[in-house]
């Protein structure tokens, strides 16, 4: 009775949670478009778009995406066979267990009048599915703890999801093993299903079950040819229809072999009942937890993939872009594929900011948009986001079909609007004059570390020949270098040589350098032009953060770049 309540309660929590989470898709405002539209308008816009899709051929693309990317998981298979095996075994293992085992009263029991959970093929199938899930869990654990990028960033959500799966599976396998060896359960079954009351027949049956069905009795019955023969007859008359030999319980049987010596003790404390509670409660918790952790991707990913099949976020109506992005935040499973393909991920080695990685950035964005991100982490998020080069690889590889690149751009605008300023953005809309008014004289602790700029040997050989400017692709693409870049490379070198580095820092040439290093290679005097520009940019960035950054949101330790 208690467990029944638990099941209904968790189902209610699950449904309410799913509604709440889906409701958030229409309340979160992500991106610059029409920021304060009421949820009702958002829902209407979404329904309108959805209904118009239903009548268009693009619906075929959606169905195809669901088959290919949800049911077959082709995207994952292409990237990694191991991960594909993990996902398929977990997904199909759990789905079959839920349908054919947890809900057997509604499914198998109706289809097959002779259904019994302990008879083949159902027992074998259930155990097989259990082994599938176990394989998936093991791969997930190994993967999360061996891949360099992933093992650093195992979140609580990842751990909880794996732990819940493991709890359900292990309690289930353990339960079956204990049940197989349990003498009290045997007695109950005899009481409930055995027609006669001949003690000799029961003793023979006990002998047969002890010999062939692994039941461990507190007082072991006498096993001989005669008792086994009688036992077999009784067994076939009363039990065989519902009980296949336990060797078919391919997951539980090895456990039976291990726990056999302890079986009498387990029988005494009725461990089978305890495990039954654990198994059902763990399943209830998982059900109730589904909308609140990464398991929600069961719902959000198919929605996200459908949206992706229709097109990019930019193609959506402005109101729907917010919704699309909110779905994207929810669709992330933190699988980490984006981080493994991120083109700026190597910068993690230099700037220890996890929000450089798309997989971590999206998690923190989710927290930020829902008002749950701590202050110092907000600053980290803004800085990590600045490093993205918008190469688009994360979007290409995301198996959940999230339009990540659009999400980065939209959130960057939101972060800047809420005071998390971007040095590159500032410098593009200003110039050296604006710089000299604000940031020129700001100094930072790292200022003294400009080992190239402050060293006269760096420049003494420069003859201002303009080779560096002649070969510079940034200057070449500018229609008017003075307007676009303030100064050209050789002019920057001259400023620095004149010890006017404070002025050089605000020059847009410094910020637009693509570090192709042609200037440095071609310089006849071997002046390290590109290295100097790079050093200047780093210092300028630090100064801008001091002067323009939202200092109220900073702790002193945040100002240290590394």
């Amino acid at each position, binding site marked *: 009775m208690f467990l029944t309540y638990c099941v209904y309660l968790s189902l209610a929590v699950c449904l309410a949670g799913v509604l709440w989470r889906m409701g958030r898709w229409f309340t979160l405002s992500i991106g610059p478009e029409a920021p304060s539209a009421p949820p009702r308008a958002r829902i209407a816009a979404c329904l309108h778009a959805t209904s118009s899709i239903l009548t268009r051929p693009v619906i075929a693309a959606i169905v195809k995406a669901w088959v290919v990317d949800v049911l077959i998981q082709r995207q994952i298979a292409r990237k990694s066979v191991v991960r594909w095996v993990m996902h398929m075994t977990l997904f199909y293992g759990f789905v079959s267990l839920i349908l054919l085992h947890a809900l057997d009263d509604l499914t198998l029991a109706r289809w097959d009048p002779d259904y019994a959970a302990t008879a083949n093929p159902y027992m074998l199938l259930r155990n097989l599915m259990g082994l599938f899930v176990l394989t998936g869990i093991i791969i997930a654990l190994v993967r999360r703890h061996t891949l360099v990028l992933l093992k650093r960033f195992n979140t609580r959500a990842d751990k909880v999801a794996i732990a819940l799966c493991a709890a359900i599976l292990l309690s289930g396998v353990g339960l079956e093993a204990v049940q197989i060896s349990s003498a009290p359960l045997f007695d109950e079954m005899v009481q409930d299903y055995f027609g006669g009351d001949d003690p000799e027949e029961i003793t023979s049956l006990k002998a047969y079950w002890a010999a062939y069905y692994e039941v461990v009795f507190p007082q072991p019955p006498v096993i001989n040819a005669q008792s086994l023969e009688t036992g077999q007859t009784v067994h076939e008359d009363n039990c065989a229809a519902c009980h296949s030999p336990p060797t078919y319980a391919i997951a539980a049987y090895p456990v039976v072999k291990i726990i056999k010596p302890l079986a009498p003790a387990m029988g005494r404390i009725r461990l089978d009942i305890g495990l039954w509670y654990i198994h059902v409660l763990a399943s209830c918790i998982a059900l109730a937890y589904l909308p609140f952790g990464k398991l929600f991707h069961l719902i959000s990913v198919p929605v996200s993939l459908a949206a992706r099949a229709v097109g990019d976020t930019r193609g959506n109506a402005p109101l729907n872009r917010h919704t699309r992005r909110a779905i994207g935040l929810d669709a992330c499973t933190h699988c980490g594929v984006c981080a493994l393909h991120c083109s700026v991920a190597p910068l993690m080695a230099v700037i220890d900011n996890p929000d450089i990685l798309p997989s971590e950035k999206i998690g923190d964005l989710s927290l930020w948009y829902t008002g749950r991100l701590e202050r110092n982490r907000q600053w980290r998020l803004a800085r990590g986001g600045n490093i993205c080069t918008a190469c688009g690889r994360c979007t290409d590889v995301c198996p959940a079909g999230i339009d990540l690149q659009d999400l980065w751009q939209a959130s960057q605008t939101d972060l800047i609007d809420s005071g998390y300023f971007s040095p590159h953005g500032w410098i593009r809309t200003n110039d050296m004059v604006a710089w000299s008014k604000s940031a020129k004289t700001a100094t930072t602790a790292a200022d003294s570390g400009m080992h190239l700029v402050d060293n006269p040997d760096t420049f003494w050989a420069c003859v201002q*020949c*303009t*080779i560096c*400017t*002649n070969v510079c692709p940034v200057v070449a693409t500018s229609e008017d270098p003075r307007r676009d870049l303030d100064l*050209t490379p050789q002019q920057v070198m001259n400023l620095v040589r004149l010890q006017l580095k404070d002025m050089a820092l605000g020059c847009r040439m410094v910020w637009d350098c693509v570090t192709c290093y042609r200037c440095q290679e*071609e*310089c*006849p005097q071997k002046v390290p032009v590109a290295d100097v520009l790079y050093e200047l940019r780093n210092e300028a960035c630090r100064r801008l953060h001091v002067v323009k950054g939202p200092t109220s949101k900073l702790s002193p330790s945040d100002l240290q770049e590394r």
Partner: protein
Amino acid sequence: MPAMNEMQCDLLVIGSGMAGMAAAMFAGQHHIDTVQVGITGEINFASGLLDVLGVHPQDQGIPWEDPWAGIRQLIKDTPDHPYARLGVDQIQRAMDTCIAFLKSAGLHYTTRHNLNSHIITPAGTVKTTYAVPHSMAAGAQALASKTPTLLVDFHGLKGFSARQIIETAGRRWPGLKQLRLAFPGTRGELYTEHAARSLDLAANRKALADLIRPHLVGAKAVGLPAILGIYRTSEGVTDLEHQLGVPVFEIPTMVPAVTGLRLREAFEQRLPATGIRALYQQKVWDAMVLPNGEFRFSAGGLAPETTIKARGVILASGRFFGKGLRADRSRIREAIFDLPVVQPKKRALWHHKDLLQPSGHPINRAGLETDEHFRPVDEKGQVIHPRLHAVGSILAHQDWIRQKCGSGLSIATAFGAVDAYAQLSRQ
């Protein structure tokens, strides 16, 4: 320390300027197994013109119409000049070979039947030179026959003013007109390499021709700064001539000029195809002679990367700007082997008091003393190493800038040294 690459060769050419490139080219023609190493240096500053001898004696500034007669006189007057180790025939052969090689690399040169040509400079003065790039040949012609010419310059291109040229040359060359244009697609400062890359494309040449055409009125030729492409200059000139209906020519620009870049690209593209193993953008970090008489070097970009073992060496490392010579507070040193450098006794004697003294300064003639095979010798005249040769501007007793013999000196001494190396090896 990271593991070094290893290379073994017969001959190592040190330097990638005019002399180094020429030495590598001749070595390739001799089928010598050659490695060339050198950082980008003076060749980027070349005007593209190949001088052999323009002026002698330099203090009188006398130009020579026939450079070969001039060289004979020079050898007679200054028998220690590097040209004296060669003689006119060898210098002529060297120049012919080099011009043919550049032609095979797509750079066409014009000579005036063994006479010097004259072309206009961006300052409006007249320069005496030997071989003229095809893209400038019509300019020499126009100057010689005083053709009415439209000179075009561009907003934002520094050091090139049509008006200045006319101001200086107008009396000698009447009928010059000037036109200043905004270079198609740009505003503000203009840099020669960017403009030249842009004009390698036909669409941009058409835009330029469309800007020039309305101003042609009466002009029988058009002169432009040397920015007509880098890789397809001849094609670009022909195309513009076709569009404008008059001869079009280039005038050298201030350095760094694309004329130098064209030379460099021609050599860098073509030399590896002739079997030269090139380590461009790399320099020699240290050098030593092994007990068996062979050389061992380490070379690399930012740090030593490759160990090179070589039987012989041609040193074409240039003068001060090329880093072949280094001056400290008291003396001039050779940068790689610390070879003895012929130089004034003390620093106070390096320069005359008059900066613009026509005869040049004593330091200009400092450099390496060699034997007849271009092998550096010590104070007693002893060869320092039997297979170490030096060529180009690092040699002593010449003043190539004032004598207008830079390319000829580089090419001819490279020719002589490689020839000597090959012959000595055969013995």
